[in-house]
């Protein structure tokens, strides 16, 4: 009898403890305490340059917010998780952040493939997630709790196609894509469509998979088609080596890429083989506008290096989230979601951020030329319905851009 009583007592106390756990926690929606925000990214894998930069931007923004008195009188705390750049790991760490750490919102990932794996978890738990830099259109289509503060690939692919056709006067393009990456496949599709529409021709298309080491077979096939430009919408780890091997094969045509190239390791791998190549990106670190120069100076003071676009986007994502929490006055999921969705004309480092009905940011893109470890600003290309009002860009738009979105 005594034994039964003891076990009953144990079971009830256990249930009680569980019940308390569910309700309590430091970040309960209407509580006081700190506001816990989850960050997940690749901190140790193949694309760890991405995750590290973004994290640095996020932490810097959070510190600035806390120094200025926090949000609604509460301090912000960033809990960071490493997904090693693997989609399945991204889903696991996001589940942990939501279930165990009870984060009120999530920031991440960079690579679209990883964000796509994690987004359904956030959507299911009604925890708003802002991706700083996943550009594949499918990311925010997962559901209405998923946002991003960057432009999307239909626009980015089109920007490069326009630059190639109008500025570089290219007629023949070859494409070398990362076969298993949604990011790379998306960009390929949109570049191809836009380039053909502008009268260009795709003369050869090759693919590789992440972790390949030898690209000479593909590059030799591309060389025999003698293209004017080669579009390589991949990530820095592979692209650096591709550029080097293209140079070894005597390929003179410039390589064109996207924001996936922007990482310091690109230069270690590619070296001077990258000179004369072009990328589309979210912002230019050399932009003279005071907002950008202040960010660059602060970042340099804090981390002793120049911020890449991903650091700037991480910073902006945190700031957009903070704005949403301020506006909502609560960290309650649905209310916070509604507040973030209303983001309009937010002055971020990477441009003015307004979220459209699909929760994507509508922003211009810049084209940069790679030269001796520097990104030299070429031109700014605006999406439809957005002119060069905010800054006086020299020789900015080429022509009325087509539809961005799908």
């Amino acid at each position: 009898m005594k034994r039964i009583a003891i076990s009953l007592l144990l079971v009830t106390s256990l249930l009680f403890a569980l019940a308390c756990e569910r309700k309590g926690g430091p970040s309960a929606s209407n509580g006081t305490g700190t506001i816990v925000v989850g960050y997940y990214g690749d901190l140790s894998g193949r694309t760890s340059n991405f995750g590290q930069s973004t994290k640095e931007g996020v932490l810097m923004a959070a510190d600035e917010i806390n120094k200025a008195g926090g949000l609604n009188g509460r301090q912000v705390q960033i809990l960071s998780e490493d997904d090693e750049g693997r989609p399945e790991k991204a889903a696991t760490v996001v589940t942990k952040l939501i279930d165990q750490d009870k984060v009120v919102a999530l920031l991440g990932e960079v690579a679209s493939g990883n964000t796509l794996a994690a987004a359904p978890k956030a959507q299911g738990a009604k925890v708003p997630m802002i991706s700083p830099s996943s550009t594949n259109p499918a990311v925010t289509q997962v559901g209405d709790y998923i946002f991003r503060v960057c432009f999307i690939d239909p626009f980015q692919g089109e920007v490069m196609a326009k630059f190639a056709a109008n500025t570089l006067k290219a007629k023949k393009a070859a494409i070398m894509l990362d076969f298993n990456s949604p990011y790379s496949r998306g960009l390929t599709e949109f570049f191809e469509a836009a380039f053909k529409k502008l009268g260009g021709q795709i003369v050869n298309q090759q693919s590789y998979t992440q972790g390949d080491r030898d690209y000479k077979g593909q590059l030799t096939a591309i060389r025999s088609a003698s293209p004017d430009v080669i579009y390589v919408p991949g990530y820095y780890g592979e692209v650096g080596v591709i550029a080097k091997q293209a140079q070894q094969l005597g390929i003179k045509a410039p390589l064109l890429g996207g924001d996936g190239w922007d990482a310091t390791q690109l230069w270690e791998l590619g070296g001077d083989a990258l000179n004369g190549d072009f990328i589309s990106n979210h912002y230019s670190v050399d932009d003279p506008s005071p907002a950008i120069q202040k960010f660059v100076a602060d970042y340099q003071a804090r981390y002793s290096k120049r911020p890449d676009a991903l650091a700037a986007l991480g910073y902006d994502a945190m700031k957009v989230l903070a704005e949403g929490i301020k506006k909502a006055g609560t960290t309650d999921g649905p209310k916070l979601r509604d507040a973030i969705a209303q983001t309009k004309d937010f002055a971020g480092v990477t441009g003015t951020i307004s979220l459209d009905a699909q929760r994507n940011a509508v922003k211009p893109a810049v084209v940069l030329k790679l030269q001796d470890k520097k990104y030299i600003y070429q031109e700014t290309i605006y999406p439809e319905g957005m002119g060069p009002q905010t800054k006086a860009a020299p020789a900015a738009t080429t022509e009325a851009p087509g539809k961005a979105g799908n």
Partner: protein
Amino acid sequence: MDTFVQQLINGLTIGAIYALLALGYTMVYGILRLINFAHGDIYMVGAFAGFFLATQLGFAAGPSLVGLVIVLIGAMIIAALVGMAIERFAYRPIRKYARMTTLITAIGVSLLIENGFVAKLGAAPRAFPQLLQEQSYTLFGNAAISKSQILIFGVSIFLMLLLQWIIFKTKVGTAMRAVSFNLNSAKLMGINTDMIISVTFALGSALAAAGGVLTAQYNPQIDPLMGIITGLKAFVAAVLGGIGNIPGAVLGGLLIGLAETFVVGYGQNVGVPTTFRDAVAFAILILVLLFRPSGLLGSTVQEKV
């Protein structure tokens, strides 16, 4: 035509690396009848040893031929020691048990090395310092060969000839052949078989490390998992050439390298996507096992009863 020649050069380059690795598989198999699955990881260890030698000794700043020679030889010595240690501590204690036990141990050692490196150094790829001033030479038409490719051909041919000399012209080599013929009889003849097995592991590992450093010069990106696929393909190369047969390993390596490159270069014309490059080696493995299990140069050995 020059595209074809170019693909031939590309294929032979990676083939030479596979050949260097396949030699290690084949030598160990010849002596112990063991497939040393950790061999691909020794290749990775060699590349990392080269990386740390280059950065610690200050050769990373710029191209230097002296640096390259020191890094290459240093990495080969380090890998040889690692290979001997693996044999001494992982394989020797269980040598008397069934062959399956050693095989599973080999897989375990492989996983241990890979994940040990990931845990210690992270999975992120590192850029290998360029010790060779890269330059391309045009052969004819558009076909180009780069300095690092010439280096790969030169060093691997030299090492293969050296290995041939060791095996056929030295006392150790004679002992190795004796052990591979029959371990127990060799022991009865007064050969220190443990020592000879150690030497075999050291030689194979040094060749793998040379492959690692040469690849890293050709393609400046190394990571702890780089040995998995390369190691598997080199194993296929050894089987294709006839496992246990040394010229066969070289032939197999070159053929796998060429097959892979031609699939990438011309596969699309006949509807084979470039992503099949890794599948090709394994398709070849299946065909070899089905139709010529002893490999191209291997001889069918009558199983002794």
